């Protein structure tokens, strides 16, 4: 237990901070994923074949390629891409992007591909009459979506989104390869300096289990909330 002491003698506070980092990256990635889903879900449902194609390429490529490869792409290519964009605006200094941003974006793009599929499925399983009724009532396009489609979509999407959350949470462990100090990276450091990898990696596993368990509890509550009236 002395390994887990807080302060200079143990790794307790470091691991605690690392856990908070994992939570922060997961939430950021999930939100980035939602914004990607907000762009690509309409494209998927669009009448235009070319827009469908763009969205399909996004979800197929991301879901068919290992997460680690995507992370390497961002890790090695991220600052290059940003510098390229900056050079267009006449800024030619070296730009370094921190690991948190790179990691959140990489995981966010992956998470977004899964979210897109979930939202597409949810919208498609809403009864057609709901869309027609919203139109007949003379709601504006925005109001149709915001007041009628969105609440129903969320109810249908939450169970599957909880899977996406689990995938995202577990994928954040891969960001450790870029050096961001989250649970996995901190355990790696602690295991190296104490020569007790078995303890620290097992403890990391316990932390992840705790995170998945607690988040499932929370999501179940949300599920109950959004299925009021059903």
């Amino acid at each position: 237990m002395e390994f887990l002491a807080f302060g200079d003698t143990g790794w307790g506070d470091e691991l605690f901070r690392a856990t908070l980092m994992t939570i922060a990256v997961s939430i950021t990635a999930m939100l980035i994923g939602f914004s990607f889903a907000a762009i690509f879900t309409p494209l998927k449902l669009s009448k235009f074949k070319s827009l469908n194609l763009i969205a399909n390429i996004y979800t197929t490529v991301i879901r068919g390629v290992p997460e680690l490869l995507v992370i390497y792409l961002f890790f090695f290519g991220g600052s290059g891409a940003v510098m390229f964009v900056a050079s267009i605006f006449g800024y030619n200094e070296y730009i370094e992007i921190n690991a948190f941003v790179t990691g959140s974006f990489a995981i966010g793009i992956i998470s977004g591909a899964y979210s897109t599929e979930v939202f597409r499925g949810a919208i498609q399983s809403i009864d057609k009459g709901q869309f027609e009724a919203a139109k007949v009532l003379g709601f504006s396009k925005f109001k149709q979506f915001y007041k009628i489609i969105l609440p129903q979509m969320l109810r249908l999407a939450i169970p599957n989104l909880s899977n996406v959350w689990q995938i995202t949470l577990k994928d954040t462990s891969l960001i450790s390869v870029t050096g961001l100090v989250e649970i996995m990276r901190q355990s790696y450091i602690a295991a190296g300096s104490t020569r007790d990898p078995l303890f620290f990696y097992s403890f990391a596993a316990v932390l992840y289990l705790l995170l998945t368990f607690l988040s499932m509890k929370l999501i179940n509550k949300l599920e109950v909330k959004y299925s009021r009236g059903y």
Partner: protein
Amino acid sequence: MDFELMINSIPKLLNAAIVTLKLLSVSLIVGLFIGLLFAILRLNKNIFINKFAYGYSYVFRGTPLLVQIFIIYFGLGQIESLRSSFLWVILKEPYWCAIIAFALNTGAYTSEILRSAFQTIKPGIIEAGQSLGISNKIIFYKIQIPIAIRQSLPAYGNEIILMMKGTSLASTVTLMDLTGVAKYIISTTFKPIEVFIVAGGIYLFMTFIIHNVIKFLEKKYSFN
């Protein structure tokens, strides 16, 4: 775009893809047996056996695959009695450590897939077997298992693709699989986009093949 690099890296990456496929196929075969075993344990009426199987799948599905590989590769070597036993021949090799981790991981998911497949079999089918005087053992092997396998094909196809992506983690324990080689080429040439396109293309091609094989099997073994 450095097309020369892309073309030059194709043979290296294709060779690495063979390592990926080897890792994938061995862990899937072992994982299928583990999955079937634990699915049967899950359906057991004994609460301890039942809970044990549930615990196994909960732990392996609730933690990242990376942690599992690291525990097996870095962690197990620390146990003195294990180091002196015959198991060390296997556990000192990163290749086998990766396969053990992958097999246990996919086994957990497979057990869930098969369990739900077993549970969706209509009781009428089993009763029909019983009324024909077929023994319970034969009902299980000849009726329940084939139906369960057919039922679980779509979900298992997804699991194969997820596992294929999972094998990329072998590169974190020094194995040179497709992702490992891709990372090596990226870090020596600093051309991430070109290498990503080639390596990602190979992965997508494998996904495409797996997807279509499963689709074909689904059609072949469909009920109507």
